[in-house]
């Protein structure tokens, strides 16, 4: 999946269960300006399913999911 994009804000939600990585992403997206890129680090495998689902429903853009050792970096751009 090409070169990893530079993020404007990185949220480390690894090993946290409540409220969880998606809620942290929603918070960051609410606080971001349109066009900004947010990266979320998550060790929860459910995030790789939940986050793209929400991003598509809310009309933002999934830039990519980058697998790391024991976690994934999920990168999203705020579109509206």
């Amino acid at each position, binding site marked *: 999946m090409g070169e990893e994009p530079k993020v404007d804000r990185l*949220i*480390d*939600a690894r*090993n*946290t*269960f*409540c*409220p*969880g*990585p*998606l*809620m*942290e992403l*929603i*918070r960051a997206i*609410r*606080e*971001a300006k349109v066009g900004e890129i947010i990266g979320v680090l998550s060790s*929860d495998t*459910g995030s790789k399913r*939940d986050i793209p*689902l*929400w991003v598509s*429903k*809310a*009309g933002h853009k999934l830039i990519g999911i980058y697998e790391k050792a024991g976690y994934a970096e999920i990168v999203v751009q705020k579109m509206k």
Partner: protein
Amino acid sequence: MSMRKNIVIVGGGPAGTIAANLLAKKLKKEEASITVIDKTGKHVYEPGLLYVTLGDQDPKGIVKDEKDILNKKVRLIVNEATKIDTKKKMVEVKSGDRLNYDYLIIATGARLCPEEVPGLKEGAYHFYTIEEAIRLKKALGNFEKGKIVIGVGGVPYKCPPAPAEITCFLDYKLRKRKIRERVDIHYLSPLPRVFPIESIDPIVKEIFDKEEIKYTTFFNVESVDPVRKEVHSLEGETIGYDLLILIPPHRGSKVIEDSGLGDRGGWVPTDRYTLKVKGYDDVYSIGDATDLPISKSGAAAHYEAKVVANNIASEIKGIESHDKYNGKVICMCDTGNKAIYLNFDYDHPPKPGHPRWIYRLLKLAFNKLYWHTVAKARFL
């Protein structure tokens, strides 16, 4: 030169109070002076707000004077901290007084910002302050039929399970009143499930399905129309209501924003293990004030306060101590006649377990014991 260290704690909620009382137990008078700055001087046991709203809890029972909870060695200043200057190592309060510190603990909590969602203040109820809990209790008492919609106005918010908790509890109360068949309960979740923790979600969903509680997922509130009685989501959906319960958006404390110490939401960037504010060796942050991606809850505040008090006291005594916060949170989610018990940390995910009456009994007991045990740092 005096070796006595000044420890200043901003905020007298559970985090600041427990830290102050633990430090007072660990340190002699000649080793440190401990000061708590609190805006109101009143300590509210916030888990009790649910019981003010739906139970018979007297609001007076969930508030005490902070001075009566603090160890006698702790000095309490009832005043609003208006500026934290980490270069000069000083905290300024509204009256103009300045306090110098050697160690600072930021325990300034979260601030409710209903104005951030258009129409929320006019159109919705909540139960996150005593006044609002009483207002909601009255509205629910007068409610005979129609549609009650429950959700959150923004993230993060204190106590992630609280909206699902009040939903189940309300269902139970309406059944007791024998009016449940005339009332629709509709739950709005910002996530793709009804409960924040995925492994617990099927258990809560089972309750929702059995009790005919409707729900809409991926509903992040954007605005409320109090005239048409509708709530709109940023995902583009609209839902009508007769009575709306919406937890207002939260931000970090004003003093954090005014001092340039917060992130975009006013939360203090904090190391998840040492609880030191990032970039500082003498400033700590605990409780709801931090930017940590964990539950904003009294339990997290309590375990964090223990780590910070231990490390500061050891440092003052010249003992090596590198206690780390392990992310521990305990939660008892009351569903009306039973409760779900959750216990987890960074390395141990919550274990799914069904609601049991014994956990509810423990929660009700803890609501009373809090004042005599945890708040006073006894048996910790």
